[in-house]
């Protein structure tokens, strides 16, 4: 054989192992999630209880939905720091509408509109203000939305009560499965459809891959950019419905640090800040991973401060494990290719 022999070949010494290994390794970050779940279910019997799985779904729903919008933004090399405050503002506006009209449809519409409107402002100011990066406008938007939400909610800090349809969507279950899970699946499905099957989704990847070339090819870059912020805002609006439904209330304090959680979910799912890379579905995996870790730490009764430490450690280890998985997958492919020559 060779002088410069690559590491990793040893692992695949028996030819029969390779197809199986490749099969396993190529399922991506999901593999890491499954491994985590197995680990936690060994550590605490409560983890796999049906009720707990429902809890995880409900706890993760908001992060997952908002992460999907965030992912579209990140695909275009952007960032949306306003999602958490946007969500809070949407719940407050929904709550105010509910005070005047007892209509679930109107309340939901108000939340969706509020969310999308903030997204539209983000996108429009970013694009037509020729700002060098969306960081500043969405950070400003975070501050403005939070301030507005507090201002609007003044005197009635927490507005209790939501129409029944909304509490059913956000808080109830059907056959033991939380309804929010269905919403997450529908939103993810639609997003994947748009991103992969529609021209508009292709344009998002193109703009993220090479913004200048996208301009050169006549893609309406500005419209594409604005649209991703609108969708991210819309997702925040959907998240607002879910959270308002789950808590049967609205509050200007909701969604604290949601921006960091969603960005982390997207990056854990394998997207890149350099744009144009990453499968939408993986954001869901990232969100669930964060949800699972938090839930397990709660179940394991880990001391509060140590929870913060453990959360950090486990997230890094999960991402590190995915790096390793990628590496092994590449090795397995090389070995397979050279065997089948």
């Amino acid at each position, binding site marked *: 054989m060779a002088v410069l022999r690559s590491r990793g070949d040893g692992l695949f010494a028996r030819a029969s192992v390779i197809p199986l290994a490749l099969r396993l390794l190529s399922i991506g970050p999901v593999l890491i999630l499954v491994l985590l779940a197995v680990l936690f279910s060994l550590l605490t019997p*409560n983890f796999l*209880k049906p*009720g*707990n799985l429902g*809890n995880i779904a*409900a*706890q993760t729903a*908001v992060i997952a939905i908002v992460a999907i919008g965030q992912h579209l933004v990140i695909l275009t090399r952007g960032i949306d720091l306003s999602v958490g405050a946007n969500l809070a503002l949407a719940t407050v506006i929904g709550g105010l509408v509910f005070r005047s009209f007892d209509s679930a449809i109107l309340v939901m519409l108000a939340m969706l509109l509020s969310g999308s409107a903030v997204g539209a402002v983000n996108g429009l100011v970013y694009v037509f203000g020729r700002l060098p990066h969306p960081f500043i406008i969405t950070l400003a938007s975070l501050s403005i939305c939070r301030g507005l939400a*507090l201002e609007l*909610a003044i005197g009635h*800090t*927490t507005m*209790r009560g939501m129409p029944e349809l909304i*509490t059913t969507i956000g*808080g109830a279950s059907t056959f033991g499965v939380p309804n929010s899970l269905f919403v997450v699946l529908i939103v993810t499905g639609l997003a994947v459809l748009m991103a992969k099957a529609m021209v508009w989704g292709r344009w998002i990847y193109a703009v993220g891959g090479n913004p200048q070339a996208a301009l050169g090819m006549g893609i309406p870059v500005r419209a594409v950019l604005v649209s991703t912020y609108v969708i991210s805002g819309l997702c925040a609006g959907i998240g607002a419905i879910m*959270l308002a439904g*789950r*808590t*049967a*209330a*609205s*509050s*200007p*304090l*909701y969604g*604290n*640090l949601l921006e960091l959680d969603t960005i982390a979910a997207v990056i854990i799912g394998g997207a890149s800040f350099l744009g144009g890379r990453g499968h939408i579905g993986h954001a869901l995996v990232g969100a669930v991973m964060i949800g699972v870790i*938090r*839930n397990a730490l*709660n*179940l394991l*009764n880990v*001391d*509060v*401060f140590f929870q*913060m430490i453990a959360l950090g450690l486990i997230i890094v280890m999960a991402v590190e494990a995915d790096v390793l998985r990628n590496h092994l997958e590449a090795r397995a492919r090389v070995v397979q290719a050279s065997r089948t020559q």
Partner: protein
Amino acid sequence: DEKIKIGFITKFPVPFFTIMEDAAKAYAKAHPEVEITFGQGTSATDIEGQIALIESMVTQGVKGIALTPVDPTVAPALDKAIAAGVKVVLMDNNIPDWQGRTALATTDNYNAGKIAGEYLKSVLKEGDTLGILEGVPGVPALDDRVNGMLEGLKGVNVKIVGRGTTKCTEELGISVAEDLLTANPHLKSIYAACGPPAAGAAQAIKNAGIANDAIVLVGFDFCCGEEEALTAGIEDASVAQFPAKMSERGVDALVKAIRGEKVESLIDSGAALVTKENMAQFK
């Protein structure tokens, strides 16, 4: 016989809640049949985190939950717990219009704020100026401390020259206090709705070289450096709650309720004015 397993959930990591946790731990030590599982959120606005904690306590099969609600919107999660047969005792703040609790152990923040206001009224004159260092805007308990203070102050016509938000941090407390002092060089008084910004304001007064007597500083919580500020004479008074008492009596009520005994539905652990003279008894 079987252990009584309960959950004890506090808002976020500051000394106040640490004291509550310690008191609960002491209670569990004194009552071996009680097993307490602890949980805490990460910040004053970590609503979703507290909901997740409630849910996982229920999953773990606790019989009761003692909780300092971070926000009234955790009520539906508590309703679900109650539906699963879990008893709930609230501590520190109430959830208005929510009927599910077995008992409430609290300092009424509004009334406690009033104590501070009444103290200010006693030392300020007509036309004096006051700057307010607010806590976390939108958090009811902290807003109540300001509103209660204003209520207590009624009667003398004191001019409010500024209100700044401090998020209950010393860093922002010192900055906002500095700016208050710049905008109003002859400021007569400062009220801080939590401990850390009160300590920050004391530091700002000290850094600015203002005489201790020239300005009245009133804090809240008697924690986080207020003791030193009171000793040094920069801070004039604070309002102390009794977190340990609150926690112990709350847990006790919860345990009794689980055993099926009858408990008081309102336990007021009270609040008191702390000054340099009487501070020894509040440590």
